[in-house]
């Protein structure tokens, strides 16, 4: 108690006041300077640019691949993980680490931080990733697949009224609670459809797929827009009903592969090698005979999803009234006119909703690699289709 | 000096204080802490003595000898293992009722002070009567102000205990106790934490209050000088387990002031008792007594 009053007394006289403040300021400034010098010395200025060094062409490389087994449209990554098609193309001694991202945005953040080198993601995250060139320059190098009902799926609660058409279902969403994982391909799709059809949900919630699942279970949500395979899983578990898709409104969705410009510039050999493997994977995906094995691969790389739901997400045909399609995924691989159109349209929309600063730069899309490889192999884009199969084709439990 | 003779002399003198209350008789008190029959600590060992009414009785002994246990037993905070205590011929505790109930007839003034820091001084002082419902707040405030003026505490009614010095705090606490018109005032080493200069002032203040109120006082200390200065009767305790070693009636006349310290009689008492107290102190030290 006494020392406090002494301190108070010292601040009362103006001389003491000034001296005390001056002392404090000087000591503070000195401390800061010391800290700066310390950091600079320990780190060195040479590293200022923080661009990753990928080594020289031909050298073995360590790659970190961010992929999404919880996103069916990008399952060429799942196939790559299992079949390791990249092995015979990459320089000997290269190591590849696969990291699961629950959402494209997570992979984008990882790539922007320099921690992930190859990304498998949906259309919105892919376009967003190219718009942060000031942090890291990223390019879209391949098209994993295009679809009408891979991202773009509307689900409602099971006790929603029976709709005569997808249009009616969409109108019903007006004034309802709709949830979506924001920043994903479904977000773009949902907002685009709402705008076009003039639908205003009472609540547009940003929730992750787990929270949406719980929400349906607790009957708190009226609807959600979610990508495969979660959509099929919710239907399989009888938690939600499918009522419309991109097919109902003629809106495509797409999955893309993204790589940092630094990797492309420094190691075109690696890019080519990986894309060779990707082509093999997409060809494998397009062969109906592999359906069961693909479903099993997906099951082994995910948790909490029944194998049947995973199979259905790629190979089941849903009724037309719920926006079902015969061709689940068009395996474009290269940049078909459809793919290019999707990118332009999506980019324009994202600028409108202030997701990105400006439309996608022309050089952000790099079709050269895939077109070269296709030519060398005598193939054309799209390289295949994932066709819907009858339910009898599912031979699992 | 025959304890018996002194006892009877005292009895006659007490009779002159008509309606003097607060006579405490401690009969064969025993206190064992912990498990009985092995593993227990014997704190009080068959203690018997009287506290005459209307007088200051001081109990002196080394720290931790068990004198506070006795005080707590009278106050009702601890139980006895055996023996009994009587207040004005009413049994406070004894066989069948090992623990007394705390009450406003036996108010305690604590060692480190127990004035409620969140109440003002006057709120503290009027706490007893107001809680018991025997006075309205206004009445209590009036009486409190009068008592505070008497005790030289005028002007600090609306201050908090934290704003006044510790010596003044003690006086407020004593006034708080006296507000309840207790039969006996129990003081548990109240001046232990004060410096010796403040202590000497406190002693005179306590005596002043005593002369005005004539309440029975039961005072515990480890300071022999304090004991002889204040007390009508001094009980010197052995080290743990405590038992009265020597009981002295201090015949230095009241009212006393600090000139008494250089008084020849005072010196004689000190000589008489110092050896005994010192002996117990050494025993306590050897036994490794810790401060409570």
């Amino acid at each position, binding site marked *: 108690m006494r020392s406090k009053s002494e301190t108070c007394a010292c601040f009362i006289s103006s001389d003491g006041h000034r001296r005390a403040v001056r002392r404090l300021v000087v000591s503070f400034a000195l401390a800061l300077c010391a800290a700066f010098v310390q950091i600079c010395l320990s780190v060195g200025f040479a590293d200022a*640019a923080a661009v990753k060094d990928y080594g020289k062409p031909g050298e073995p490389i360590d790659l970190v691949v961010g992929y999404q087994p919880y996103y069916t449209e990008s399952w060429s990554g799942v196939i790559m993980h299992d079949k390791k098609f990249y092995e015979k193309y990459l320089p000997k001694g290269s190591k590849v680490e696969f990291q699961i991202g629950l959402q494209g945005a997570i992979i984008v953040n990882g790539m922007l931080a320099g921690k992930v080198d190859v990304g498998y993601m949906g259309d919105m995250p892919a376009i967003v990733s190219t718009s942060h060139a000031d942090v890291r320059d990223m390019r879209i190098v391949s098209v994993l697949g295009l679809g009408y009902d891979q991202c773009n799926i509307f689900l409602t609660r099971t006790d929603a009224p029976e709709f005569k058409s997808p249009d009616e279902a969409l109108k019903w969403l007006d004034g309802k609670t709709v949830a979506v994982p924001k920043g994903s391909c479904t977000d773009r799709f949902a907002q685009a459809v709402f705008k076009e059809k003039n639908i205003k949900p009472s609540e547009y919630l940003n929730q992750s797929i787990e929270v949406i699942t719980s929400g349906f279970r607790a009957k708190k949500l009226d609807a959600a827009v979610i990508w495969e395979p979660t959509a099929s899983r919710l239907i399989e578990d009888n938690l939600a009903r499918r009522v419309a898709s991109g097919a109902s409104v003629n809106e495509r969705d797409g999955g893309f592969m993204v790589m940092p410009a630094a990797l492309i510039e420094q190691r075109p050999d690696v890019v080519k090698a990986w894309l060779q493997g990707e082509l093999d994977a997409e060809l494998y995906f397009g062969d109906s005979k592999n359906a069961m094995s693909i479903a099993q691969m997906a099951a082994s790389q995910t948790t909490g999803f029944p194998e049947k739901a995973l199979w259905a997400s790629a190979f089941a045909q849903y009724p037309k009234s719920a926006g079902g399609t015969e061709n689940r995924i068009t395996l474009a691989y290269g940049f078909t006119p459809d793919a290019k159109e999707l990118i332009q349209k999506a980019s324009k929309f994202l600028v409108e909703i*202030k997701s990105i600063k400006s439309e996608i730069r022309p050089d952000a899309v790099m079709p050269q690699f895939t077109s070269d490889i296709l030519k060398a192999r005598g193939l054309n884009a799209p390289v295949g289709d994932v066709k819907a199969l009858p339910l009898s084709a599912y031979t699992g439990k | 000096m025959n304890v018996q003779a002194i006892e009877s002399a005292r009895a006659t003198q007490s009779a002159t204080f008509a309606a003097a209350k607060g006579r405490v008789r401690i009969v064969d008190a025993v206190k064992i802490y912990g498990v009985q029959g092995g593993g227990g600590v014997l704190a009080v060992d068959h203690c018997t003595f009287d506290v005459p009414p209307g007088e200051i009785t001081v109990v002196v002994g080394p720290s931790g000898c068990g004198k506070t246990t006795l005080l707590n037993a009278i106050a009702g905070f601890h139980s006895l293992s055996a023996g009994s205590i009587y207040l004005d011929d009413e049994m406070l505790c004894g066989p069948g009722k090992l623990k007394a109930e705390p009450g406003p007839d*036996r108010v305690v003034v604590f060692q480190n002070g127990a004035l409620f820091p969140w109440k003002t001084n006057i709120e503290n002082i009027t*706490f007893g009567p107001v*809680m018991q419902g025997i006075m309205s707040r206004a009445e209590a405030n009036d009486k409190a102000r009068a008592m505070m003026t008497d005790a030289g505490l005028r002007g600090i009614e609306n201050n908090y*205990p934290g704003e006044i010095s510790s010596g003044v705090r003690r006086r407020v606490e004593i006034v708080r106790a006296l507000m309840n018109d207790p039969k006996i005032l129990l003081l548990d080493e109240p001046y232990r934490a004060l410096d010796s200069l403040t202590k000497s002032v406190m002693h005179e203040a306590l005596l002043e209050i005593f002369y005005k109120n004539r309440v029975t006082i039961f005072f515990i200390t480890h300071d022999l000088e304090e004991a002889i200065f204040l007390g009508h009767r001094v009980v010197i305790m052995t080290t743990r387990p405590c038992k009265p070693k020597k009981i002295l009636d201090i015949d230095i006349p009241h009212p006393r002031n600090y000139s008494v310290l250089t008084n020849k009689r005072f010196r004689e008492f000190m000589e008489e008792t110092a050896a005994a107290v010192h002996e117990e102190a050494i025993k306590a030290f050897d036994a490794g007594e810790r401060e409570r």
Partner: protein
Amino acid sequence: MSETKLTEFAGVVDQQAEQGSATKITSWALTMYRWSQWLQSPRPYLMVIGFAGFLGFWYLAVEVWKLPRFAEMPGPTQVFGEWFSKDPTYGLSVFTPEYYLHIWVSTRRIAIAFFLATAIGVPLGLFLGWSVRFKQYVFPVFELLRPIPPLAWVPLAIVMFRGSETPVIFLTFLASFYATALNTMLGVESIDVSFVRAASCLGAKRWQVFRHVIVPGALPFIFTGLQISVGVAWFSLVAGEMVSGQYGLGYLINTSYTMVRYPTIVIGMATLGIVGYATSAAIRLLGNYMMQWRMRELSLGAAR
């Protein structure tokens, strides 16, 4: 000038002591006095210097020197540019109404959750400290549930509570409640037994001891607990708002992450920090006001 004020103030006290009057120095006057003293002391200016140092370091590390792990962060020019821009790139700045909506929604949730946590936590803590029997029944369960982080309660919260607001408030309430209850209990246990004894030998009954000794005696600890609890409520809010999905500062930060809007993340964090600081300070001031005896102890220590 401040010297005169102090003696003036002390003079008021002496005057009253002389007159022997019983007028109180009002708590409000004392609070205002302390506030004016604070503004005249160097303290606010040192605070500003502290912040300036922090911002300076951020600026230099990210934008000037581009230190390795710092170069990819948004720098203060980008963040402040966005924050105070009339037409922000990502749609959020001090000029957009959504910004204040987010602040309002979060603050409202915190207020409700904190109020509930205090209304339930303080009495519970008081009883846990006061009654040994009660503590024996309740404390083990309490301690078992306490380490479970709010994030782990998300799925149960969604199922247990109706609507979308209640689960968020529940998640925010949890950690706040534990901090308050625990500190209150410790507050009661910290009360010197002499106070309880003094009260009982002055004739107070058990409930009077509770009201006049236990509750005020535990107040310092309770307020410490409240300050911690409001801070913890803000922590939990970010987890809680994952469930909500529509407005709030936690939602803003979550969404900015998935939308890859880095400057907005920092804006959200900074706003959270500022509002959180303000709520904490408000509680501290309230505590000081309610515990006048401590404040007087400290401020009039100079006069003595």
